[in-house]
């Protein structure tokens, strides 16, 4: 178990995406101080933590949406702030929590917009773009939706289409901010299965901010637990998920059992007794 100062413990030199001593704030509100993180190459990294612990903010900083007040995000050995915008977008894709599908756009056209960083003013489409879009539609099982309008789709289908757009961007690094919000359990599993497939095929390093602790523990190859703007633990779910960690991060007494399907840790919150206190 690595609770104290874990990022240093598993910081491998040369990982493509790292952050050093980040201080992040929105206006006056400080979200994180001295936050360091290292995303193992080829991993499916999931970031968990209670509401307002700064996990989405961290993801925004990693994707250069939020410039850090101090510290730096390092992409391929270089400060991410030094890259041209399109170059970042060719290496690192981001699917934000809320995006607006334009009125009356078809699935294929929306997915094709993911090709923007590979295009130029007078070279707006190439054979590579066709291949990328077709592959993205196939990977996400949205090929038969291609000519439908995005407005007509169900929530689960729409989320797959957004994912397809992010895949069409063909970035080696892909950051997803709560991609399962508003989805029922079937669709949550579907989206996470897709993330696992993508990671297993070795094409991409994927970082996901996830609310569902148990699903994160099941799917993550690398789990990062955050609280109050700092990383409490990082490592494989089996190593780090303990009742002590969950108590520390979520202040929730619990017991941990093995997931009967996968053997990964499953967090069972302690039952509430009649007086309202929790049995521990």
């Amino acid at each position, binding site marked *: 178990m690595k609770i104290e100062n874990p990022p240093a413990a598993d910081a491998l030199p040369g990982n493509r995406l790292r952050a050093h001593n980040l201080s992040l704030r929105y*206006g006056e509100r400080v979200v994180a101080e001295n936050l360091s993180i290292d995303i193992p190459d080829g991993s499916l990294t999931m970031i968990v933590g209670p509401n307002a612990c700064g996990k989405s903010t961290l993801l925004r900083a990693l994707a250069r949406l939020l410039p850090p007040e101090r510290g730096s995000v390092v992409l391929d050995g270089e400060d991410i702030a030094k890259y041209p*915008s399109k170059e970042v977008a060719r290496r690192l894709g981001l699917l934000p929590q809320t995006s607006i599908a*334009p*009125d009356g756009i078809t699935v294929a*056209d929306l997915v094709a917009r993911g090709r*923007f960083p590979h295009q130029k003013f007078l070279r707006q489409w190439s054979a590579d773009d066709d*291949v990328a879009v077709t592959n993205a539609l196939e990977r996400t099982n949205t090929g038969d939706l291609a000519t439908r309008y995005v407005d007509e789709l169900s929530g689960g289908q729409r989320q797959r289409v957004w994912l397809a757009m992010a895949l069409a961007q063909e970035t080696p690094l892909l950051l997803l901010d709560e991609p399962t919000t508003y989805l029922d359990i079937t669709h949550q599993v579907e989206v996470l299965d897709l993330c696992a497939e993508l990671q297993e095929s070795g094409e991409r390093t994927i970082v996901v901010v996830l609310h569902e602790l148990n699903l994160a523990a099941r799917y993550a190859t690398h789990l990062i637990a955050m609280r109050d703007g700092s990383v409490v633990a990082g490592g494989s779910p089996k190593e780090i998920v303990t009742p002590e960690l969950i108590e520390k991060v979520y202040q929730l007494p619990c017991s941990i059992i093995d997931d009967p399907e996968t053997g990964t840790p499953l967090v069972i919150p302690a039952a509430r007794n009649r007086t309202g206190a929790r049995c521990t």
Partner: protein
Amino acid sequence: MSAVKTARRAQAAPHTAARLAWRGWSVLWSPRAVLASAAVVLVALGFALVQLGVGDYPMSPGEVLATLTGNRGEAQEFVIFDLRLPRLLTAGLVGLALGASGAIFQSVTRNPLGSPEIMGFTMGASAGAVAMVLVFGGQEGSGMAGALIGGFATAATVYGLANRRGIQGFRLILVGVAATALLDSLISYLLLRARLQDAESAYTWLVGSLNGADWQQVQIIGLTVIVMIVPVLAIGNQMRLLEMGDDLAQGLGVRVKPTRLRLLLIGTVLCAGAVATAGPIAFVALAAPQIMRRLTGGSVSIVPAALMGALILIVSDLAAQRVWPDSQMPVGIPTLCIGGTYLAWLLYQQSRASRL
């Protein structure tokens, strides 16, 4: 990435956009938008031919064409080239500028109400023009200069007030509505204090008019439109991505803040140029992008909206001249009728779809 490389010969992705490719170059375009735009251009040219022919000296379309190609006498040439053509060109060019600026503002604010008149720029230009006319007593060009100064000053103020960690669309509209109300009362105050004669000449700056448009006006608005063509075409794709949200656009490599500022600048220049030329012509910027959006499907786009703006203004000017002849009806009044009706319909539609 290797799996992607091996599948390089996959079939073309299904698309509603068509491509135009030549050597290494390619351009994406939507067949429906191009068809609709072509139809709008044809209809506008038809109305243009009618408008050149009608008046106190009626001419047949054949005669108009012959005169345009230089095969008629001096009288015809005078009527066409000195009287009617400048007015027609002014109408078309002002319409182009208003339609394009409307599309830009609606896209930036992600709101169909986000047009320059709602955001206060048109009223600012009017206030500037009225102030200058009253101070300089209608000296040549004073109204025009006032419109430019007033338009830009209002735009800068509204952007400044709406800017809090980046300019947000809805705040732009709210600040703009407040600015419009303030400027409206300022104009009323100025007119009350003015001599009747001055107030009369300032009045043209309160309702847009093409009466007496000559080649000087064509030059001003023509130059504005020509200078803006390349920036407008170059920024279209980024504008489309911005509509999907700042984070997503930036994730795709759009530099959000500079792009939005550039869009606002282009929109403001086009709008100010139009107001300086013909006064505050109402509702063209509001209605043109929305009408075109319904014809082309998809979201607002600049070029089709500009063409629709030109068509609306040419038709409105023809109506202003012919439906009420001898009245010197300012073109702003028919556009108000058309635009107001349209706005009411739009609000009704949207409240039914419970989007507003």
